[in-house]
């Protein structure tokens, strides 16, 4: 039994992180993510766990890596430009297999872009932002309540798979205050890091005998101390650098396979009115809620349309999207960017059925009416939906 609260999604993510057992937060201020550190600055000292605002974006993720490596659940939060700065360290978390939750409240770009406006422009940055082959898990909730549930899940996935996990929200979601239920920690499933099964002297941080080697805390609750080395270089089972090709290839492949072998556990999605649908809208995050309104309207007009909403954005829902080829006649991808997730959809569908996009990167939310128009008339391109009067609000439009 928990609490009822009226929160925006950013504050909801912050509360959920503490529910999930987040024991360390380091961040740097960036719009539109500010409510996350602001909430945590209040509640983390109350829970008795460290909260720190670091000197820059890079420092904040590196501090999280240190905290997490030592055995503490850690989280950081940022937005587009800050995420670009964090990318090198994100790669370090991938190669050292350090659990980490990274909240990215997406904003428009490139560069400083549109700080206060919603966007979904970091889909590909989340996937491929850091260099080298690496897996990634990214989750995109569609409202504040889901942000709470998915933040808890993000911590669980991070701990279970020794893997950095993204929570991708946007400026629209982060400012939407809604009634939410905040469960107690006892009420939810919380995954703790797998304990090592061997004594310290036999322990290797990247033991070849495991698909996901347990990451030993440096100091266990029963007083044992696991002393080991971890390097950001490619390493062998001991954590020390290696250049031996089979070791490197084994490690690189395992990084991918530890995720892909468990894809069914990681993937999460919602089918909305898809039973008899001929048109499938694919939308995620806050945009999915606009799509839901459009689909309801279209259904009233007798159009057989439904929605596939990936909640796990990465890894890509390959199987589910391939299956759509047999189920529906066309796909409409709706996203607040100029086409990022749609690229993967196009690859998976492989031209078997037509794919259309409602793609907008104008700093304003996609409206249900735009999606509805596209459902009715897929061939026609959708323009920015705004009256002259509305344009005046932005001080322009002449």
């Amino acid at each position: 039994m928990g609490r009822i609260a009226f929160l925006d999604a950013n504050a909801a993510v912050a509360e959920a992180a503490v529910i999930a057992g987040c024991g360390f937060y380091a961040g740097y201020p960036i719009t539109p993510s500010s409510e996350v550190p602001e909430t945590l600055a209040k509640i983390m000292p109350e829970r008795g766990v460290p909260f720190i605002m670091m000197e820059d974006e890079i420092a904040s993720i590196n501090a999280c890596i240190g905290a997490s490596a030592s055995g503490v659940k850690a989280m950081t939060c940022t937005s587009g430009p800050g995420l670009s700065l964090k990318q090198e360290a994100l790669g370090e978390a991938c190669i050292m297999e350090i659990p980490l939750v990274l909240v990215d409240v997406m904003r428009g770009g490139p560069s400083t872009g549109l700080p206060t406006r919603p966007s979904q422009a970091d889909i590909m940055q989340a996937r491929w932002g850091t260099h080298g082959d690496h897996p990634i898990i990214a989750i995109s909730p569609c409202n504040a309540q889901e942000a709470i549930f998915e933040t808890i899940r993000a911590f669980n996935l991070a701990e279970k798979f020794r893997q950095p996990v993204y929570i991708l929200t946007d400026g629209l979601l982060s400012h939407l205050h809604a009634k939410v239920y905040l469960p107690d920690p006892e009420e939810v499933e919380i995954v703790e890091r797998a304990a090592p099964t061997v004594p310290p002297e036999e322990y290797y941080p990247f033991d070849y005998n495991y698909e996901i080697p347990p990451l030993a805390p440096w100091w266990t609750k029963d007083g044992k101390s696991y002393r080991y080395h971890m390097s950001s270089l490619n390493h062998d089972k001991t954590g020390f650098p290696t250049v031996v090709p089979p070791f490197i290839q084994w490690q690189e492949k395992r990084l991918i396979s530890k995720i892909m072998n468990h894809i069914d556990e990681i993937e999460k999605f919602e089918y909305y009115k898809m039973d008899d649908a001929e048109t499938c809208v694919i939308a995620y995050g806050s945009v999915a809620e606009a799509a839901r309104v459009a689909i309801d309207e279209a259904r009233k007009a007798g159009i057989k349309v439904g929605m596939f909403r990936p909640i796990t954005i990465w890894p890509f829902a390959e199987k589910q999207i391939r299956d759509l080829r047999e189920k529906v006649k066309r796909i409409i991808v709706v996203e607040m960017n100029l086409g990022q997730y749609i690229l993967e959809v196009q690859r998976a569908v492989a031209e078997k059925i037509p794919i259309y996009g409602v793609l907008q990167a104008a700093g304003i939310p996609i409206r249900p009416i735009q999606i509805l128009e596209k459902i009715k008339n897929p061939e026609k391109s959708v323009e920015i939906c705004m009256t002259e009067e509305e344009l005046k609000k932005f001080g322009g439009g002449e």
Partner: protein
Amino acid sequence: MGYRYELRFGGVGGQGSLTAGTMIAEAAVFHTKYYATQVPTYTSQVRGGKAKADIIISDEPITFSETTNVDFFMTTHQSVYDAYRGDLKEGAIILVDPALVKNIPDEDRKKYKVYEYPLIYTAKHEIGNVVTMNVLAVGVCIGLTHVLDKEAVREAIKDRVPPAFLDLNMKAYDLGLEVGEKFRKEGPTKK
């Protein structure tokens, strides 16, 4: 679709108009059976920038929170009035402070029900502290629209205001309710 009421509170950063909206949304969420959402919009200009908060009150879960049929619009600044009256429903209620929103087109007076009340002057001189303006506005809004039970809103105000200012704010709320009820009987301000 069941009951749905959309409110918009606008001002320039620092006036506290958004807080008025938050109190109504919190009243709905914590003290009634309704669902509510609130979406603030503001610029990076911390003081003096245009700001608004859109509130939806509904008896059904609200999945998409865009306000396109605003029933009630309160503002204390001309620039905000000009910028944010686009999504108003025909016959919507508008509450403005005439000292700060001076230029209301005649067509607006025909299309909407415009009420004028010196919110800031009253808060400052009759109640005694200009910060009570937002609670006063909440009172007028509730008295005028009856969108929520007035006692539920009173509870929400109590949750939010500092204890030292409780009496002052209750005075502001009661006065607001009274003014709102009077407006409700008398109809829009004549010009």
